[in-house]
């Protein structure tokens, strides 16, 4: 009896080890033999099968292995750790604009100018291209962008006799009027957990918080006049209870969106389609408009979100990876597929923005309004020259813990911005950078 039990354990162990081994072998892509080269691509954009198949058909020497490492921050943490460890990074990776300098400064990315990316410059919207270029290199190929606009509830605007605001002053007047008429509905929701939204609003107000100088020196002015102006404006609305400060993309937020507790959503070009899926019950009530302006008659927007495809320095096949990155985001057929269902990425390629089919889609969710055409126009009004810091994850976490806190606590946004300036300057110094005043 005892001997048998023992043998059973041994068998169980061996079996388990075998299955584990099988899992180890079965899961990963077959390593490339001398034949085609395999390029591993980290992206959290789902459903890329068709695009990859087309690429492999037209590029017989290259296979693409698409891996989803998780969304946003999770993917960056993995990539950063892999780069720090010197091993484990993919050949190509999806990186949002704001994170490019972070990976560039740690020498994690390949300068794509080497592989002829320079010739694509004029094919992309200037504000997008501007964000992939720095320190004389091209560090990613723009994939999609998020020029900002406003989605608003037409029914709420009509019921409370609000006019669609073209200036922020008018927006504030609307907010006050709405609050008087029905305190249960707020003019909009600013998300304390989403620094990208806040950053976009600062950007539109003229803020340019960072400027790298020669690779070792940086000018930090998080609380420059533009950002301070916007912060003071929103602080006032917040303290009067005229806006909500619920975290976005949470159950609470979805529920409020669908039930019409916010009259507007200040969002970006990827927003309209997302909302039509997330708030189905409110179909037909929504319309889109450009961002209100600080100065009447101006036409200034900003970017919130959007990604690039970059090639890592750990890649053994940088040329093939670069070829894929360029093809995926500039081949007309590929970009058309990315912009179509089920992905609906808002392209940064000029030619794709100009196609009739893209412009003419008139979803009933927006009462037949040509939202894509509107956002294509807005894309041209995003001012170039906005720089991201090489430690943007830290900057965003500071935004959340300082301004985010002020937002929910109805405290001083302007004071929080000054606190953020102080901690970010301290962090930059601790990273060995020379910090010059803003």
């Amino acid at each position: 009896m005892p001997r048998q039990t023992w043998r059973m354990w041994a068998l169980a162990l061996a079996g388990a080890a075998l299955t584990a081994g099988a899992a180890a072998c079965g899961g990963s892509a077959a390593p490339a033999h001398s034949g085609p080269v395999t390029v591993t691509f980290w992206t959290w954009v789902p459903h890329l099968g068709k695009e990859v198949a087309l690429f492999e058909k037209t590029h017989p020497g290259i296979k693409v292995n698409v891996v989803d490492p998780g969304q946003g921050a999770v993917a960056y943490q993995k990539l950063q750790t892999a780069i720090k460890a010197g091993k484990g990074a993919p050949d190509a990776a999806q990186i949002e604009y704001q994170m490019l300098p972070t990976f560039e400064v740690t020498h994690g990315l390949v300068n794509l100018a080497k592989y002829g990316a320079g010739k694509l410059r004029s094919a992309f919207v200037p504000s997008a291209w501007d964000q992939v270029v720095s320190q004389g290199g091209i560090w990613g190929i723009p994939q999609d962008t998020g020029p900002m606009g406003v989605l608003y509830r037409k029914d709420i605007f009509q019921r409370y006799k609000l006019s669609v605001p073209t200036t922020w002053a008018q927006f504030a007047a609307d907010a006050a009027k709405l609050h008087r008429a029905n305190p249960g509905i707020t003019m909009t929701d600013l998300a304390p957990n989403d620094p990208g939204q806040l950053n976009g609003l600062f950007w539109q107000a003229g803020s340019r918080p960072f400027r790298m100088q020669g690779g070792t020196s940086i000018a930090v002015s998080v609380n420059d006049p533009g950002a301070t102006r916007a912060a003071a404006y929103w602080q006032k609305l917040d303290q009067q209870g005229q806006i909500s400060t619920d975290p976005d993309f949470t159950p609470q937020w979805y529920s409020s969106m669908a039930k019409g507790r916010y009259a507007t959503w200040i969002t970006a070009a990827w927003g309209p389609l997302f909302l039509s899926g997330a708030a189905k019950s409110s179909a037909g009530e929504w319309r889109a408009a450009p961002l209100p302006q600080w100065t009447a008659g101006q036409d200034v927007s900003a970017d919130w979100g959007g990604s690039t495809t970059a090639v890592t320095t750990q890649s053994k096949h940088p040329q093939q990876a670069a070829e894929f990155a360029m093809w995926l985001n500039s081949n007309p057929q590929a970009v058309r597929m990315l912009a179509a269902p089920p992905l609906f990425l808002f392209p940064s390629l000029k030619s794709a923005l100009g196609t009739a089919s893209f412009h003419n889609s008139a979803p009933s969710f927006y009462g037949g309004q040509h939202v894509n055409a509107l956002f294509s126009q807005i894309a041209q009004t995003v001012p170039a020259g906005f720089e991201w810091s090489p430690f943007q994850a830290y900057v965003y976490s500071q935004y959340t813990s300082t301004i985010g806190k002020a937002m929910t606590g109805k405290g001083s946004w302007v004071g929080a911005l000054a606190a953020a300036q102080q901690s970010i300057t301290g962090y930059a110094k601790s990273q060995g950078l020379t910090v010059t005043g803003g």
Partner: protein
Amino acid sequence: MNILTMTRQAATARSRAPLRRDGGRSHPRRAARRAKAAPYLFLAPFLCVFAAFIVAPLGYALYLSLLRTELIGGQVFVGIANYTQAIRDSAFYAGLGRVALFFVIQVPAMLVLAIVFALILDSGTLRLRRLFRLGFFVPYAVPSVVGALIWGYLYGRQFGPIDQLTSALGLHQPDLLSSGIMLPSLANVVTWEYTGYNMIIIFAALQAVPAELRDAAAVDGAGPVRFALRVKVPLVRPAIVLTTIFSIIGSLQLFTEPQIMFSIAPSVIGNNYTPNLYAYNLSFTNQQYEYSAAISFLLGAVIFAGSYLFMWRVNRRARSAS
């Protein structure tokens, strides 16, 4: 002689008789040598993985904590600079204060509940004991990721059942995820997850108390509640000490629950709600692995000190009682 009787004899003889290793009839010396090597052989596999996956990473972390990586200039040796920075770091203390408060409030509440449940289950007054035992224990089977997710929904306004019920009664539910209430809300999640687990440990200990011991104590004719508090609880003190130690470690290391709550209450949780969360964010968001290692070592020291202080008090009281 069967094993049962041997087991009982052994239990009484154990304390008096040290292991006899001199006894081989055939090859006494060789047997002794084998016996000498045996413990090391039995321990070798465990110690190998222990060295590889605990000692080595710890050593590496200790080494890292003496360095600092700068974006510009790379890794430099800074000695104890990370530690001197850490002991002046208010963000670290804020988190530490929170878990200390959590420990002072949640742990006693949970353990008292667990003891009461275990005593009621053990008293025999209850019908369907098995149902209660299992029902209380089941949350332990729920991964803390899922547990925190569920409670996040339950706490929600409008769609959360708690809000739905309170507003049906004409009451207004306070925001359970606001900064003032977050700590109790988290305490509730942890209590939900682990009360049953602690209850089972104490209940098992109660069940294992020899009947003669209890019967001897029962003759003085105390009521069931007095009997439970005066006789049973002292008998299972070791089990209570064990659960307390685990709760000290667990609460000071609080991580998953606040991390999941971050997505629905970001500005309340922030990046330093608990020391473990702070260390995590220092590593992965700020890329300050070395500073993070220093923070983690300080946290480890606090846990160590807390546990030993507790054990010391327990032992002292036990000595003075006897």
